[in-house]
C-alpha cells in the first residue's frame, strides 16, 4: 500500500525525499567506510611485498634491525652488488636463461596452440569437447610424476644442463592452458569474416595470420603473458635438469642465500629483480588473467 502511494502519486515525492535522505547518507557513509577498509586491507595484505621492496633499498645494517627501521636512508647498494660489483656470481646468465626458456617456450606454445584452437573453435573437429578435455587432463597430471623419466632421458641423450630441454618441457606445461584460453578467444571471432576470406581463396595460414590473429590479438597477447609467467616461475624441473650453464633465475635465487650468506637487503633486491618481469606481465594481463588462470572457463 505504501509503495503504491510512493511511486504512483506525484505529490508524495517531497515527503519521500525527506524520509529517504538519512538512509542515503547512512548508506553513503557505510560505503565510504567499506572503501577505506578495502584500502587498509589491501595495504596490509601487500605489506610483505612492500616491505621487500623497501628493504631492497636499505643498507645491510638497516635491513637487519629489530624493531624494523622504516625511515632508514635509501640506497641502491644492494642492486649494485647484485648486478656483479660485489664479487658474487653474476645474475646475468640465469636471467638470460630464464628469458630464453620463457620466450622460446611461449613462442612454441603459440605456434602449436593457435592452429589447434582454430580446429577446436572455428573449424570444429568431431568430438571437439573430448579433445579439449584431453588437453586439460594432461595439465592435471602432476609434473613431478614424469620428472624421473625425463631426467633419465636427458642424461642418456646428453641434454642435461641444456636450456632447450626446459623449452620443450615448458612448452608442454603451458600448451593445454594456451589451447583452452585461445579456444575461448577464437570462438569470439565472427565466422562471417573467416568465410569471406575462404571465399577469396585464402589458405589456413593466411586465415590464421591475416584474419583470426588480428581479431583475437588481445586474447593471444594475454595467453602469451600467462605462459611467459609460468615458465619464468618454474623451479622443480629447472632445479633437477640444469646446473651451471642453463641455470634459471629461480634456481639462482635459491642458491643465492647459501652462496652469499644471509644478506637481507641483497636477497630482497634479488627477489625484486627476478619478480619484476612477472609483475609487469601480470599487471599488463590483469583483465584477462582470470580467464587464463581458470583455463578460459570464467570470462
Amino acid at each position: 500500500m505504501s509503495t503504491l502511494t510512493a511511486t504512483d502519486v506525484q505529490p508524495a515525492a517531497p515527503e519521500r525525499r525527506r524520509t529517504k535522505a538519512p538512509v542515503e547518507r547512512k548508506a553513503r557513509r557505510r560505503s565510504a567506510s567499506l572503501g577505506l577498509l578495502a584500502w587498509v586491507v589491501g595495504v596490509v595484505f601487500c605489506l610483505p611485498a612492500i616491505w621487500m621492496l623497501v628493504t631492497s633499498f636499505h643498507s645491510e645494517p638497516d635491513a637487519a634491525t629489530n624493531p624494523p627501521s622504516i625511515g632508514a636512508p635509501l640506497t641502491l647498494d644492494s642492486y649494485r652488488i647484485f648486478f656483479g660489483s660485489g664479487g658474487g656470481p653474476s645474475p646475468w646468465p640465469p636471467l638470460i636463461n630464464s628469458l630464453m626458456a620463457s620466450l622460446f617456450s611461449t613462442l612454441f606454445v603459440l605456434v602449436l596452440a593457435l592452429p589447434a584452437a582454430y580446429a577446436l573453435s572455428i573449424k570444429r573437429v568431431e568430438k571437439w569437447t573430448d579433445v579439449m578435455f584431453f588437453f586439460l587432463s594432461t595439465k592435471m597430471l602432476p609434473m613431478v610424476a614424469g620428472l624421473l623419466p625425463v631426467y633419465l632421458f636427458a642424461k642418456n641423450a646428453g641434454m642435461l644442463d641444456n636450456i632447450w630441454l626446459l623449452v620443450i618441457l615448458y612448452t608442454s606445461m603451458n600448451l593445454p592452458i594456451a589451447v583452452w584460453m585461445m579456444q575461448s578467444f577464437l570462438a569470439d571471432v565472427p565466422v562471417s569474416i573467416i568465410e569471406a576470406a575462404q571465399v577469396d581463396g585464402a589458405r589456413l595460414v593466411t586465415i590464421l595470420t591475416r584474419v583470426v590473429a588480428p581479431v583475437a590479438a588481445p586474447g593471444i597477447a594475454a595467453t602469451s603473458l600467462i605462459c611467459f609467467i609460468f615458465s619464468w616461475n618454474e623451479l622443480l624441473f629447472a632445479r633437477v635438469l640444469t646446473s651451471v650453464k642453463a641455470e634459471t633465475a629461480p634456481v639462482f635465487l635459491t642458491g643465492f642465500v647459501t652462496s652469499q650468506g644471509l644478506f637481507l637487503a641483497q636477497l630482497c633486491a634479488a627477489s625484486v629483480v627476478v619478480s619484476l618481469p612477472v609483475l609487469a606481465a601480470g599487471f599488463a594481463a590483469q583483465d584477462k588473467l582470470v580467464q587464463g588462470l581458470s583455463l578460459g572457463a570464467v570470462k
Partner: protein
Amino acid sequence: MSPAGQAHSPAPRTAGRGPGTRARAWATRAPLLPALIFLIAVTQLPFVATLLISLFDWNSLAPDSRSFTGFSNYGSVFSDADLRDSVFTTIELTVTVVLASVILGLLLALLLDRKFMGRGFVRTLLITPFLLVPVSAALLWKHVLYNPEYGLLNGGWAWFTGLFGVDSPGQPDWISEMPLTAVEVALVWQWTPFMMLILLAGLQSRPLDIMEAARLDGASNWQMFRFLTLPHLRRYLELGILLGSINIVQNFDAVFTITAGGLGTANLPYTIYQTFYQAHEYGLASAAGVVVVIGTIIVATFALRVVSSLFSEEANRA
C-alpha cells in the same frame, strides 16, 4: 560456440560419402595434430615410463641389482613412515591452504565488488602476492618475515609492544616452532589473490536485474548474499577450490625453500624429488609419483565435471 559456429561445424558439410569426405575430415583435423602429438609425447610417455619404473627395485647407485619387484614399491610407499607421513602432510597442506585462501579470497572479493576511490589500485595491491615469483615469495617469508632476530613479524611485534613499554616481548622462532603452519601461511598469502580474482569474476557476472528485484522486494544484504550471491558463486567456488587443489598438491617451491622438507613438512612432490635426486631410489620415487597421480585423478574427476558444467553453460549461453 556461437550458433553460427555450430552451423559451420563439419558435420553438415561432410554429409556426403566418398574419399573427398575423408580427406576433408583430415584437413580439419590437421591443425590440431601437432599440438596433440607433441603433448602426448612429452607428457604421456614419461608417465608410462614412471609406471614401468615403479615396478622395479632400482637404486641408481647400485645399477647391477636392478630387478622386477611388482607392486612392492607401492607397499613401501604406505609402510615407510616418511613416505606415509608425506601423504598426510600433502593432504593437510592442501586442504588447509585451499580452504583458508578461498574464505579470505571471498571476503576480499566482496570488499572489492563495490565502487570506491582507487579501487583499481587496491586490486593491484591485492594481486601482487600472486605475481611474485613463487621462490621469491617463499624466500621473503622465510628470511624477511619469519626470521626470529630481525624478521618483520617479530620486529613489528617488538615495535608494537614497545609502544606500551614492554621490554622483552615474545620473539618466537616461527619456522622451527610451527613449520607446517609457516609454510601454509606463506601459501595462503600467495593463493588468496587467485581465489579473489575468480570469485570477483563470479560476483561481477551476477544477473543485475534479479539482484535489483530482490532489493526492491526488501531483501536484506544477508538474505541477498545467502540466497542469490552464494548459489551463483557456487560454481566459481568449486572452480577455485579445484584449480587451487591441483596446484597446491603439486607445490614444491614453498616446501623446498622455507623448510627444505624438514620438521614434518615434506609433501609428496618434495619427497619424490628427494627420493630420486638425493637417495637415488628410482623405483620408490616412481611409485610415490604414481600415488600422487592417482590422488590427483580423483580430485581431477570432480574438477573436470565442474569445469565441464561451466563450459556447457557458456556453450548454451552463446
